[in-house]
Every structure is written in C-alpha cells, then in structure tokens.
C-alpha cells in the first residue's frame, strides 16, 4: 500500500505551456463543472518557457478575446521582415519566404504570456500547481488513469530526507500531456502505446535565446530578422533570429537541427560565432545580456506526428509535435491543439477519438501543406531552399511526402569522413558575452537542490568511457548547452561526470545521445531554470 495522497480530477493536464493552458481555459469556458488541474515542473508558470517568439494571435484571440486589454510584459507588433544569407563576412538579402512574413503578428515572451494565461485559468477555477513535476503515468489495465507527481526531499542517495514529501497521485478521467518538446511522460506514453508506429522518425532542433539590453538608438521595435548560412556549413540545418523589442531590448537566438552529422560540432559555439558576424556584432557591442536559455524544438511535422490519443490520455502541442517549421511558429498551433483537445473532452468525455478530430482540423491541413519543407534540407541548404521554394509555390501539393530522419543516429563516426572544415572560418577570439556555457547558464537563474538524485539517468556509463569515446568523442560534452556532461580523466581513467544542477531542461541529451542511453527525468519540482521574459 502506498501512503500517497490521492487527488481526483476530471482532467489532469501536465505542463503549463500554451497548449496545456489553452486546454484548461477552454474546458472551463464551456464546461465550468469539470474539475481541472494543471501541473508545471517549473517553480512558476513561464519559468521553463522559452520560445522566439513571434506569435500568430488568431487562436489566442479566439480562446480569450480580452487578452489584449492587459497584454503580457513583452508584446510588440511585428514590423518589417528581413531574411539574410550569411557568408563569413557578408550578408545577402534574400526574398522573405511567404510563410515568414509576419504582418499582424506579435513579438512576445512566451514566459510572460503563459503567466497571463495561468492567471486566466485560475480565475476560471483551474487548480494550477507550479513547482510540481509529473513523474510517472498511473496505469490501470492498459489505460492511463492519471499522473504521479514527483517526490520532494529525496536525498542524492535515493533515501527520503528530513523534509521528504511523497508526490501526490492525481487520478483523472482524462490526462492531457502538454509537456512541450520531448516530454518525459510523453516519451513513456509513446513507447507504451506504440503511438509512433509507422510514422516517419521524429526530428528536433536545439534553440538558444538571449535577451539583450542595447545602448539607446540601435533597436527598431518590431523588426524581425532571420538568417541562414554562416557559421553553419551547408549540410547543417539551422539559422538565427533577431526580434527587436521596445526599451532598447532585442531577442537574439539560434536554432540548429539536431540531425547534424559532425560529432565535433558544438551548437552553442555556433550561436556565439554567429553573434560575431560583421552584420550582427555591431548591434550587440556595448550591450548586456539580461537573460538566456536553451530548449529543443520538435521539427518532424505531420509525417512524424504520433497518434494523439491513447486510452485515457492525449497529446497536445509540442509534446505531440505540431510546430510549423517553415513558419518557425508553434504557439498558435499549440493553442489550437489545446482548444481542440478541450472541445473533444467536453463533447465526448473521453480521450479516444482526439487523433481523428485533430487530423480533420485546419491545423492538420496547415501542417500537411508544409510537410516537405524541413526534410528537404536533409540534402543540404541549397537543395533545401530550392525544394522549399517549390513546396511553397505548389502549396504543398507535391504527390510525395519526404521522410524525416532521426537525430540520434545521424552522427558520423570520428575519422569516417575527411576532417570537417566547418570551424576553419570561425572567429578565433570571441569577445561578446557570454564567454562560455557556464557564463551563459548564469543568465538562466538556475536553482537546483544538489542533494537529490541525478535526474539525467545514463543506463550504462561504460559505453561513454569506451565505445562513445572511440566512435564520437562524447558528443554530449559539446551538444549540451549547459555543460552538464563532462568527461573527466584522472588516475583511474576516463569517466563521465554529470553536473545535473546546470541542466536547463532542454532535453537535447535525451534526443541526440547516439546510443539512446540517456533518460531525462524531471528533478524535484521547482528545480531548473527561472527564465524571466524569455
């Protein structure tokens, strides 16, 4: 018998992002008698939310027409769009792809937006629980019956400490997994119920973002700039964004496709290199970083989208993978998925059938139209751009669907190819902050009780020490944006050291680890970054 408290709800939602909160709000709007709770592993709503972000406001307007009366802390109407192709020293203006035109859209902080959505949800009677992580699915005879919250106060040795508090079991008629990209419960559910069977492989990107305070006069509020090209080679998918805010602030960020092939590549370093491009550097010089963070994005599109329902539970938003890659927008899709899930629950009282409902929706048509754009870049930047132009011209009516490729097996074994030249034309002496990944993590306001079990579970560290070192030289030590993974060599040989308290919950390790032996599980609720206005 367990001594856990049990709480019962009609609907339990895991994850306080746009999808989960939209679902909660929509349920309460149309069926106030349904009891709804929402778990968020961050210490407050928005603490783990990180997105560009330019948002299409339509779905939010539909969900909550009055939201503009008291807009979130950062909300700047989109102005001009610029799309640049960078070479080492120059930048060429390219025509802005139609999907990337942002007239009528808004530059927002996703963290600030979800705080507002959380207030709205609470006002409607949703029980919002920040600081509580969903640690496991409750199952009964092949059906999801709720969520077990993570225990608090467990010591590093796994034993209960003096302040130990067992996590509550939340029994729910329907469980909505809205954990965002590569959610840990979502991963469990997809495996257990075979939700991705027959689908194209899921593929991801890793995004970095910084909020800068600039010297007066440089910023053009509303300006939206994107680049492709340098410092990435043409085989690596990715690009940058700069969104100009008010009060001399800009968001600057960089996204790299996690299907990159060179094990020596460092996504964080690529971002820092990009900031030193002659076209970019002048914007930032003399400014200071206010906040920074990193998060993976889900890029597989509709051909990789798992089945969205299983007995007792459903997937919404980026937990499922509804991001629109060519638009580089997921918030409107997430809100739509949340609304659709809510309507399904209210109308049918069950999770089953949600997959069919969503696939008949406008969101599914939107994703279908752009399905071939991202995988077109599997053959490099140039063919990718040509293919993207074709797909855009034809409105996605090509009779084929390109397959996505998985990220964990895309790395080339060290020495199998000629030494890559990607870093030859990189800047040698960077001088813009942050100096390194640890300096960057400082701006994420991380909090993490050291006396708790390591939440990055590596099934077999002997693989790291031998096989992975020989084949890939331990790429985790480079792809992790927070320098969680280090290989330490001392008299006893080589061993993996995990600096778990640096973790910013981006999930890149769970995705990119070539042997799939890293399992990211949530640490004690409230741990992790405390993003402010990202």
């Amino acid at each position, binding site marked *: 018998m367990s001594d856990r408290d049990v*709480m019962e709800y009609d609907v339990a939602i895991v994850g306080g992002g746009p999808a989960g909160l939209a679902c909660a709000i929509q349920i309460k709007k149309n069926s106030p008698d349904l009891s709804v709770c929402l778990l968020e592993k961050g210490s407050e709503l928005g603490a783990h939310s990180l997105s560009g972000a330019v948002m299409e406001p339509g779905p939010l307007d539909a969900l909550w027409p009055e939201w503009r009366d008291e807009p*979130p802390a950062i909300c700047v109407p989109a102005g001009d769009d610029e799309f640049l192709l960078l070479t080492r020293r120059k930048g060429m203006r390219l025509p802005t792809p139609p999907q990337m035109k942002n007239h009528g859209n808004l530059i927002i902080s996703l963290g600030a937006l979800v705080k507002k959505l959380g207030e709205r949800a609470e006002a409607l009677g949703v*029980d919002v*629980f920040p600081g509580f992580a969903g640690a496991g699915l409750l199952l009964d005879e092949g059906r999801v019956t709720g969520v077990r919250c993570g225990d*608090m106060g467990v010591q590093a040795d796994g034993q209960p400490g003096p*302040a130990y508090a067992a996590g509550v079991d939340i029994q729910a008629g329907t469980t909505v997994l809205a954990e965002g990209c590569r959610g840990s419960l979502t991963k469990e559910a997809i495996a257990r119920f075979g939700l991705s069977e027959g689908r194209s492989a899921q593929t991801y990107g890793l995004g970095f973002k910084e909020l800068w305070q600039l010297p007066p006069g440089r910023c053009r509020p509303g300006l939206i700039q994107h680049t492709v090209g340098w410092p990435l080679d043409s085989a690596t998918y990715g690009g940058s964004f700069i969104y100009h805010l008010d009060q001399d602030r800009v968001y600057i960020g960089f996204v790299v496709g996690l299907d990159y092939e060179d094990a020596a590549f460092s996504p964080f370093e690529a971002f820092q290199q990009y900031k030193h491009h002659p076209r970019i550097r002048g914007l930032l010089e003399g400014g200071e970083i206010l906040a920074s963070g990193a998060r993976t994005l889900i890029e597989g599109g509709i051909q990789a989208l798992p089945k969205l329902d299983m007995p007792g539970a459903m997937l919404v938003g980026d937990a499922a993978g509804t991001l629109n890659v060519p638009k580089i927008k997921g918030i409107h899709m997430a809100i739509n998925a949340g609304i659709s899930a809510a309507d399904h629950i209210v109308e049918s009282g069950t999770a089953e059938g949600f997959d069919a409902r969503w696939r008949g929706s406008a969101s599914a048509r939107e994703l279908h139209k752009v399905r071939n754009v991202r995988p077109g870049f599997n053959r490099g930047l140039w063919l990718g751009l040509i293919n993207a132009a074709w797909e855009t011209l034809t409105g996605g009516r090509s009779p084929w669907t390109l397959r996505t490729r998985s990220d964990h097996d895309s790395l080339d074994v060290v020495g199998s190819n000629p030494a890559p030249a990607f870093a030859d034309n990189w800047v040698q002496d960077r001088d813009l902050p942050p100096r390194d990944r640890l300096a960057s993590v400082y701006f994420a306001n991380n909090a993490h009780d050291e006396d708790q079990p390591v939440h990055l579970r590596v099934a077999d560290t002997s693989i790291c020490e031998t096989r992975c070192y020989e084949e890939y030289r331990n790429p985790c030590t480079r792809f992790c944006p927070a320098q969680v993974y280090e290989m330490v060599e001392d008299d006893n040989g080589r061993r993996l050291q995990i600096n778990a308290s640096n973790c910013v919950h981006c999930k890149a390790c769970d995705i990119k680890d070539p042997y799939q032996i890293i399992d990211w599980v949530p640490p004690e609720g409230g741990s992790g970054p405390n993003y*402010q206005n990202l």
Partner: protein
Amino acid sequence: MKVLVGIKRVIDYNVRVQINREGTDVIKEGVKMSINPFDEIAVEAALRMKEAGQATEVVVVSIGPGAAQQQLRTALAMGADRATLLETDDEVQPLAAARALMNLVEKEQPGLVLLGKQAIDDDANQVGQMMAALWDKPQATFVSGLELDGGRIRAVREVDAGLETVEITLPAVVTVDLRLNEPRFVKMPDIMKAKRKPLETIAFSELGIEMPPRLESLGCEPPPSRSGGVKVDSVDALVATLKDKGVL
C-alpha cells in the same frame, strides 16, 4: 498562544536582479516574486511551535501590493491558520512597516511576533527592532536556535563573536536567521486547503499611519564588474606588477 508572523514579497533569491535603464530602481516587472527567505523560516518556526503544542494559532501578515496575496497563500499552504494583507502599492519604509505591524499586534494580541531578520530586497534589518521598541517588549534578533519554556524564550543569536544565548520573557519579538530551520515543502492538498483559509485585506491607508518617507533613494547601480585575473611568468614579474599596482 497566538503567533504573528510577518512576511514580505520580494524578488526571488534565484533571480539575478537587474536595474532599470534610468538607474532609479530594480526591475520588478515580469520577475519571479517569493516570500523573503528569512520570513519563510519564521513561518516554519511558528508552525513547528504549533505542531509541538506550544502555539495555538499562526497568523501571517504582509504589507504590500494585492499580488502579495500569493505569498500569503503560500504561507497558508505551509500550514498557517489565517492571513492579513495590509494593502498598498506605495513603498513602505521600515518605521512605517513597524507601525503598521503594531496596529495589527494591538488587534491580535499575539504572544510572540516572528519576523525574518531582514528582507533580501532592501536589507534594512530594522523592522523587528523598531517594532519591539514601539511595543515596549523584549526582542531577540538574528536567532538560529529557539526554545520555548513556559512564558520564556531561550534564543541563540548569531553575533559577530559567535553565538550568544539570551533568555527573554513573552510577549516578545524574535527575528530569525538562516540556520534556524529548513522550511518544509508545500503539499498539493494543502494548497487546496489554503484556498479556503481566511485571508483578510485591509487598505494600508485606513490604518491612519501618517508616515512621509524618511529615506530618499538617490539611485541604483550595479556593482563594478571585476576585471579578469592576470598570469605572470616569474617572481620578478609578480613583484613588478604588485609594485605597479601600488600594493608593494
């Protein structure tokens, strides 16, 4: 015995504080706010007294904006019985805060007032002391050990020279230090219970405290950034560098 605990809403200690562009104040917009950590320790101390049968009721009070209800609800979820918010959007300086708390003390007649030793925003470290003087009762400050014995309190104080143990009679004011205890985790069912616990809001302006600010804030600036260290090759170079800096 009733215990009154004062808590303040402050910028969360994990958040890197930033100064606004005008250099007049720190940025609070969109920033995570929490209970002042020392005050949270005071709440925990009061709850442990109640659990040990030494206190009958724990009342938490805060002075601040309407949003400070969040912090009071957190204290209620930890286990406090009821809460009062003295609501104001204005800055409340230490003497005004002490007077406002006194106002509540007269109404509630607590046997003990527990406060954090200082708030981590202004670091004033004055309210407890001022309150004890206004109330004309004994005080123990910087307390890292607390024993209740009938009508007396034996308190261990953290002082410059080490630890000092004092004994004072109740009613009294005690301000607590970091090492007194480790506050508990809030449990989910208790968050639900806390929603139904009484939370009274009184407009600060109704307290009749005429208190023009005594302190004027002239400006805010970040600490000077540290320049990086220098490596020298030899003892001679070290000596030369130190001489150059005027150290030798």
